[in-house]
């Protein structure tokens, strides 16, 4: 029997159901792994009692012969952007330090209802704004991966960097992530893990700390495609408490997984062949194309002509929505309050927000406030929403010819913490992940292999709206051929 923490979500669920081991044994093993991994800084709060409590309930239900949920006995990590009742939910910001929600987010409740248990709340970029985890007020997550022969601390990606690091380091078999412009896919790519952002509206946003509401989507991060399919089934579904929730039944993605791609067409967008694209990334992409052909798919060159404008569009729309969403942090209803002597209400707001928000969050609020302000609204915000419509139209046209699109997930492998100090350099890392977000499309990252430095590279698969199945199937075809088995050597 392999070590407990090396088991995948499906192996754990099946092992518990068959009585090969108990849910309490599973939770105990992962609690110990979390407790040992302080050096990774992946968790903001650990909740070993909650994990054990959920496990005991599963073991009792099994002993009583009751039916078990889809995730019975599986302990998971929860990105600290999901409201969890009575457990600090900080969005990795000082402004929410100590905030203990009085309610449970829809997605986390669904996971508990399916029999999962909470190992703890995972670190992230502050308010999910960032691509390297360095904007967290609790310090950056350190990737369990290291470049061959070096011990420099690397980024686990962001914003779901605690999630990616924890899954890669075997601190949890699966974790929740959220994705606004690539925050599930890029960290998955950087850590050799698998993650899917479903179609916008599949997972309820109720109880998820809002960043950019027209883009935010929750999704699973795990070790393989099947685990993601099972967990996404548990997370997705209509919720009347989210006005943009899709009122559609949740398909049986896991049962319908099929890596036979005969009759399917895969699009390769020429605009993604950037000048000077990293040679290892280009090679992984070519390899991915060959794998999908091997799985029976026909490969078709396509064009997404407005690709080059996606980042600029995103960096208007996301900050605009963020500036509006983050207006709620005012020192009155929850979280931090800064009240200098003699300050009036307005001064209290300004002092609270100055003390509570980190630099990147302030930067985005200011950009958002500017592009929404009188006289600039049409030139920036309306213009960006028009270009966004063109970007979505590009995909619509492409999906008349092809079933899925294959691209690299990120333009490089993981870089060192502290390496990118200019915000624009950081934004450019989202070049492949942002366009599908702007169009609300399902997209996933699967590991393709290692680069010359021994670091993971991911491939991105993008599908039609509502076609998570097509995305998962193509992901499975790659997974079966990539046979990605590398894992970070334990140094923590």
């Amino acid at each position, binding site marked *: 029997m392999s070590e407990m923490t090396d088991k995948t979500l499906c192996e754990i669920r099946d092992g518990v159901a068959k009585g090969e081991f108990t849910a309490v044994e599973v939770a105990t093993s992962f609690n110990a792994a979390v407790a040992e991994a302080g050096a990774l800084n992946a968790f903001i709060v650990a909740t070993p009692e909650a994990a054990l409590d959920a496990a005991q309930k599963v073991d009792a239900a099994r002993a009583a012969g009751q039916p078990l949920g889809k995730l019975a006995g599986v302990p998971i990590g929860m990105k600290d952007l999901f409201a969890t009742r009575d457990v600090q939910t900080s969005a990795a910001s000082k402004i929410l330090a100590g905030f203990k929600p009085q309610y449970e987010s829809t997605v986390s409740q669904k996971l508990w209802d399916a029999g999962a248990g909470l190992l703890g709340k995972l670190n992230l970029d502050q308010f999910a704004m960032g691509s390297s985890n360095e904007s967290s007020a609790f310090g950056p997550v350190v990737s369990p991966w290291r470049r061959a022969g070096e011990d420099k601390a690397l980024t686990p990606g962001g914003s779901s960097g605690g999630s990616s690091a924890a899954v890669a380091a075997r601190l949890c078999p699966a974790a929740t992530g959220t994705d606004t412009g690539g925050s599930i896919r890029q960290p998955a790519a950087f850590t050799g893990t698998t993650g899917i952002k479903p179609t916008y509206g599949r997972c309820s946003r109720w109880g998820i700390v809002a960043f950019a509401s027209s883009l935010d989507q929750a999704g699973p991060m795990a070790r393989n495609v099947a685990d993601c399919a099972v967990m996404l089934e548990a997370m997705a579904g209509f919720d009347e408490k989210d006005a*943009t929730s*899709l009122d559609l039944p949740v398909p049986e993605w896991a049962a319908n997984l099929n890596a036979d791609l005969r009759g399917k067409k895969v699009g390769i967008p020429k605009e993604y062949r950037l000048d000077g694209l990293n040679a290892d990334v280009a090679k992984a992409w070519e390899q991915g194309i060959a794998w999908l052909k091997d799985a029976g798919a026909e490969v078709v060159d396509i064009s997404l002509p407005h690709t080059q404008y996606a980042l600029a569009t995103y960096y208007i729309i996301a900050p605009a929505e963020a500036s509006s969403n983050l207006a709620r942090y005012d020192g009155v209803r929850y979280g931090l309050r800064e009240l200098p002597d003699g300050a009036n209400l307005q001064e209290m707001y300004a002092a609270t927000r100055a003390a509570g928000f980190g630099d990147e969050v302030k*930067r985005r609020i200011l950009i958002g406030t500017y592009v929404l302000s009188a006289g600039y609204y049409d030139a920036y915000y309306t213009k960006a929403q*028009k270009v*966004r*419509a063109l970007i979505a139209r590009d995909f619509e046209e492409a999906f008349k010819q092809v079933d899925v699109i294959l691209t690299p997930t990120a333009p490089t492998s993981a870089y060192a913490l502290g390496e990118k100090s200019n915000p624009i350099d950081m934004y450019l890392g989202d070049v492949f992940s942002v366009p599908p977000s702007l169009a609300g499309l399902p997209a996933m990252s699967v590991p393709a292999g290692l680069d010359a430095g021994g670091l993971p590279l991911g491939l991105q698969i993008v599908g039609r709206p509502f076609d998570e199945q097509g995305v998962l199937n193509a992901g499975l075809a790659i997974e079966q051929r990539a046979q990605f088995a590398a894992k970070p050597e334990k140094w923590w």
Partner: protein
Amino acid sequence: MSVDTATVAKIASLARIKVSEAEVAAMVPELNGILDFVEQLSQVDTDGVEPMTAVIPNVLRLRADVVNAIPETGGDKRDAVLANAPAAEHGFFGVPKVIE
């Protein structure tokens, strides 16, 4: 378009974020870098293009027109609403005096 120190100070005031003069000075080039970057959108011909309002077509639903139609977002939750307030007093949010 670019911003100067006066504009950044005004935006910060609109956003209710207290900033020192030194912080404003540091933000001016950062924000101008971002504004230069997004400026490329002016190259895109968007004549006759409707701005996107919903990324996935969806219907706007109305909830049932009854009290507490969705209990989790309904009323009778005063204590829960106030539980995380920095200064809850007598069942209300406490704030500095706003009326002279």
